[in-house]
């Protein structure tokens, strides 16, 4: 963590409004994107961001909060929020709505294809363990390094590498199986 972020966090611990606002402005958009990638639902993503920052404030107020790397800490809270939601909420189906056909001005068939594929990848990610999912998303979607990911999930780098290896293998198998079945239908 850089000196500037050290200072920012120090000020945030004093409940300095400017510092806290700067933290929100710096990370809320990225956290929203993170939640959207996993949830695909703007309202839930907004709720995730709101609750993440609320928990952050409560932790600071109680003398807790991040020991060092702020970004990783916030991702960890958001990840826990999403994991809790997964436990309580059944997997959403893709609705064949008219919105899907008219979204944007691009080819509607292509837009629908993209949404299906996104749902398929989200569903496959959801089949992973919470830690495996978090490692893959942080590493390959949020572009965090091994070191940053280790901080985010509070585990050593060796554990991150191991989780990544298993997650890749499982996700590859899930997506390949799904495609194989699809091809099987197509040939039937």
């Amino acid at each position: 963590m850089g000196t500037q972020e050290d200072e920012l966090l120090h000020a945030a611990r004093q409940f300095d409004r400017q510092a806290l606002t700067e933290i929100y402005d710096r990370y809320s958009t990225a956290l929203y994107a993170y939640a959207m990638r996993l949830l695909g639902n703007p309202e839930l993503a907004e709720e995730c961001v709101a609750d993440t920052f609320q928990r952050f404030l409560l932790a600071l107020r109680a003398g807790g909060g991040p020991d060092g790397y702020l970004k990783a800490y916030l991702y960890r809270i958001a990840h826990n929020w999403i994991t809790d939601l997964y436990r309580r909420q059944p997997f959403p189906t893709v609705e064949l709505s008219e919105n899907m056909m008219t979204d944007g001005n691009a080819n509607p068939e292509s837009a629908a294809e993209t949404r299906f594929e996104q749902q398929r990848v989200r569903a496959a990610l959801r089949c992973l363990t919470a830690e495996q999912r978090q490692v893959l998303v942080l590493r390959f979607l949020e572009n965090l390094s091994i070191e940053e990911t280790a901080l985010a999930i509070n585990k050593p780098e060796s554990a991150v590498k191991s989780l990544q290896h298993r997650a890749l293998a499982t996700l590859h198998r899930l997506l390949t199986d799904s495609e194989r079945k699809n091809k099987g239908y197509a040939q039937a």
Partner: protein
Amino acid sequence: MRKLNTITENEIKRRLEILKEVPERNPHAASSGRARFLAQIEEISKQAVSLQGKQRHSGWVEKIRSNFIQRKERLPMLAQLLSVILILSALLGGGGAATVYASQSSLPGNWLYPVKIWSEDMRSDLADSPDTQIELQLQFAERRVEELAELVGKGQPLPEIVALRLESQVNHALQLAAGLQAAQMSEELSQIRQRLMTQLQVMEQLHSSDPQAEALLTRTRQMLQTRLRLVEEGIQSPNSLHQQLKSQDQSQQNQDQLQQQDRDRLQQQDQERLQQQDQQRDQLRQQTCTPQPQNTPAGSPQNGCCGSDAGNHGNGQGAGGNQGGKGK
């Protein structure tokens, strides 16, 4: 082996790319979220430091509640009221009060809806006695039911978050009642029972042709029925309510141990849904593609989106048997 891993890694990276692109964030929702955060800074900065300890040792209802509602030690009423007025005025401009008022009839999906939720949280924080807090939680729960009814009436999707909030608010009311002295507790539980019965009656009238919405309505009805049973048992025997809450708390604590079993079950369900979605996609392709002349060879370039799907028609038909099945 290393080469194989690299191939897998690159392949997965490529597949994950599709999630990278995120639709642009709604500016109204973003600014509402920011306003809510700024208000929370003011609110939480006034809280006593003992809050976290209280939350750490509390049960499942407290956990749910802390996800949605911030708690704090009470400040003098006037100071809180002034702070709310100031924050509202500062954040929402001269028309702050009007905006909050206007938000009260907003529905999920409307940019004013977060203001409505936020104003509820603020009202809840202002309440200085358990019976007022219980009354507010019940009122807010009724609002959630009304929102669901209105959304169903308009044929709009039902956001999961509305049902989650309803559950949280009912739980909060129950937890507050459970903390009262026996006589007052019994009185409050009777009040809660009456209100839950009304909510349940409304919910029983609601039905949707959308299977996903219907599933949410069913879950919500079941949740209300469960809570109603809990309340009735509590009225009969106050200790029973304490024990039920305690046992559910214990059950929540054991959840981590059961996580693996849940994951296996969810994995199986999700794989089934993946399969169903593949089938839905095939059907969609058939619906969206312009019918081709019969002499057009399957898979030919001019076949456009349908090219590779000519052979999929059998799939779409074959999938029909699964389409009606509910995932859960």
